[in-house]
C-alpha cells in the first residue's frame, strides 16, 4: 500500500468507528423509550405516576400545536440565558476586582468561602422577599448559583498566570491594567471558557428551582403544577423539553468556546 492508500484506510476506520458509536447511542435512546412504553402499558410501573412516552409526546405535540407551551419556554429560556450571562460576566468582573487589589482579595476571602460553601438555593425565600415574586428573583437565583463559582475559578486562574509574562510587559513600561489586558486575561481565557459550560448547567438549576418557588409561568412552574394536579404526563413533558433546550444551549456554548479560543487575541 502506498501512503495515500494508508491514509484513506485510516480515514475509513475513523468513519466506521463514528458509525458504530452513533448506532449504539441510538440503540440506547430507542430502547429506553421502548422499555418505558412497554413498562407503562403492561403495568410494570404505575402509568399514572410515570406516564408513557406516547402520552408525553402526544401532549408535547398538542401543546406545540395550540401554542400554549411557547410562553413557558420563552420565559424559562429568557431567565436562564440572562442568569447565565450576568452570572458569568459578574463572576469575571468580581474576579478582576479581586485581582486588582491583593488586599481586597484577602479581605473578601472568608466571605467568598462561606458563600461558596452555602447551598445557594437556600437563599430562595430571601431573594423572593427582597426582589418580589417575579422574574427578578428567578433570574437572581440563576445568577447567584453561578457567580461565586465563576469568581473563584477565574480568580485562581488569574493568579496562576506565569508572572514572567508580566515581567516582559513591565520591561516595556506596561501599567498594571495593560498587564491585565495583554497577559492575565488572555492567559486565563481557557479557564473562563470552561466555566461557561458549568454555568449553563448551574443557571438551569437556579432558574428551575426559582420557578418552583414563585412563578406562574415557565417550565419549572409546569413541573410543579403538574405535580400538584397529579398530571405526571405534564411533568415528564416539561422535563423532556428542558433536557432538549439545555442540551441545545450547551452545544451553543461549546460552539462559542471554539470561537473564543480561536479569536483569543482581540
Amino acid at each position, binding site marked *: 500500500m502506498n501512503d495515500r492508500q494508508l491514509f484513506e484506510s485510516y480515514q475509513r476506520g475513523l468513519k466506521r468507528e463514528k458509525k458504530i458509536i452513533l448506532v449504539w447511542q441510538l440503540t440506547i435512546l430507542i430502547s429506553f423509550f421502548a422499555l418505558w412504553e412497554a413498562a407503562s402499558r403492561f403495568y410494570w410501573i404505575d402509568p399514572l405516576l410515570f406516564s408513557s412516552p406516547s402520552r408525553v409526546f402526544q401532549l408535547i405535540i398538542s401543546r406545540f400545536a395550540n401554542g400554549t407551551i411557547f410562553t413557558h419556554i420563552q420565559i424559562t429560556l429568557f431567565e436562564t440565558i440572562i442568569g447565565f450571562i450576568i452570572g458569568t460576566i459578574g463572576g469575571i468582573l468580581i474576579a478582576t476586582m479581586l485581582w486588582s487589589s491583593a488586599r481586597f482579595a484577602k479581605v473578601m476571602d472568608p466571605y467568598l468561602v462561606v458563600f461558596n460553601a452555602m447551598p445557594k438555593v437556600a437563599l430562595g425565600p430571601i431573594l423572593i422577599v427582597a426582589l418580589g415574586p417575579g422574574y427578578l428573583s428567578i433570574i437572581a437565583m440563576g445568577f447567584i448559583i453561578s457567580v461565586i463559582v465563576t469568581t473563584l475559578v477565574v480568580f485562581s486562574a488569574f493568579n496562576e498566570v*506565569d508572572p*514572567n*509574562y508580566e*515581567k*516582559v*510587559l*513591565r*520591561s*516595556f*513600561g*506596561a501599567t498594571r491594567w*495593560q498587564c491585565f489586558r*495583554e*497577559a492575565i486575561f*488572555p*492567559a486565563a*481565557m481557557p479557564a473562563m471558557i470552561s466555566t461557561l459550560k458549568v454555568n449553563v448547567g448551574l443557571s438551569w438549576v437556579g432558574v428551575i428551582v426559582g420557578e418552583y418557588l414563585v412563578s406562574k409561568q415557565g417550565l419549572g412552574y409546569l413541573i410543579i403544577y403538574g405535580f400538584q394536579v397529579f398530571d405526571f404526563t405534564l411533568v415528564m413533558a416539561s422535563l423532556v423539553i428542558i433536557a432538549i433546550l439545555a442540551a441545545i444551549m450547551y452545544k451553543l456554548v461549546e460552539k462559542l468556546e471554539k470561537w473564543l479560543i480561536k479569536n*483569543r*487575541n482581540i
Partner: protein
Amino acid sequence: MSFLTLDHVSHHYFSKNNYTKALNNISMSVKEGEFIALLGPSGCGKSTLLSIMAGIIRHTEGKVLLQGDEVGESELDIGYMLQQDYLFPWKTIIDNVLLGPKINRNITEELKERAIKLLREVGLNNVTLKYPNELSGGMRQRVALVRTLINDPKILLLDEPFSALDYQTKLNLEDLVSDLLKTYHKTAILVTHDIGEAIAMSDRIFMMNTNPGSIAKIYDVPLELRNEIPFLSRRHPKYQILFDKIWNELEAKESEKKAVKIPNE
C-alpha cells in the same frame, strides 16, 4: 560618564517567616556602548540583579542610576530578555514582536516594516503570522531577541539568552547579537554561566559569589578579543589564557568552599 551605575545595591527577598539576602553590596559602573558579562554559579542572584537594573523589582538598599536618573523614574527604553523566551502563545509572531510598541501605543507601518526586517536579519522569514508553538526553541529565542530590540532600547539586559540552544545555534546567535550590538552601539549586560561565552562576547566580566550574591572579581577582556566576532575570538590564543585563568580561580573557590565545609560536617 557612566551610563549605568549601581551604588551599594543589596536585595532581600522576604517571606512570612524568613528572608533571603540575594544580593549584597553591589557596586558597578558601566560605560555607554560597553558589553558586560555577569558570570556566576546558579542561584547567585544574576537574574535578580538584572531585574533590578530593568526596574522590575525594587532593590531594598542602595541606588541604581541610569544616565543619572533613578532606574524606576528613567524614561530610557530598556530591553530585557528573560531567561526563557516568554513569547505569548496566543499572539502571532508579529504581534509578539510588536508588544513593546503596542504597550507604548506607537505602532506604525514603519515599525512593522522594521520588525519584519529584524526578523529577516536573525534568519526568520515568513513566520510573522505563525504562532510561537509552531517554532523551534532556537527560533523562539530569536523572536524574543527581536521583541527586545524593536523598541530600539539604549541598554540591553540579556538573561542567559542562549542557554537553551544547541551549540551550533548558540554560536551563530552569539555572532548575530554581538554584531547587532556593535552596529547599533548598544550597552549590554549579559548573564551567563558559560565562561567561554562571557569571554567571547563581552568587554568586561563580572564574576559573582554566592550567598549572598556579590561581585568577586572583575576581568578585563583583552582588546584583541573584543574586536573579533565571538566565533573567531574563541580561537584566539588569548581566549584560552583568560579561560584558564577564570577556570582556575573558580576551581580554587570551589575547593576553598569544601575546605571550609569539611570541618563542619
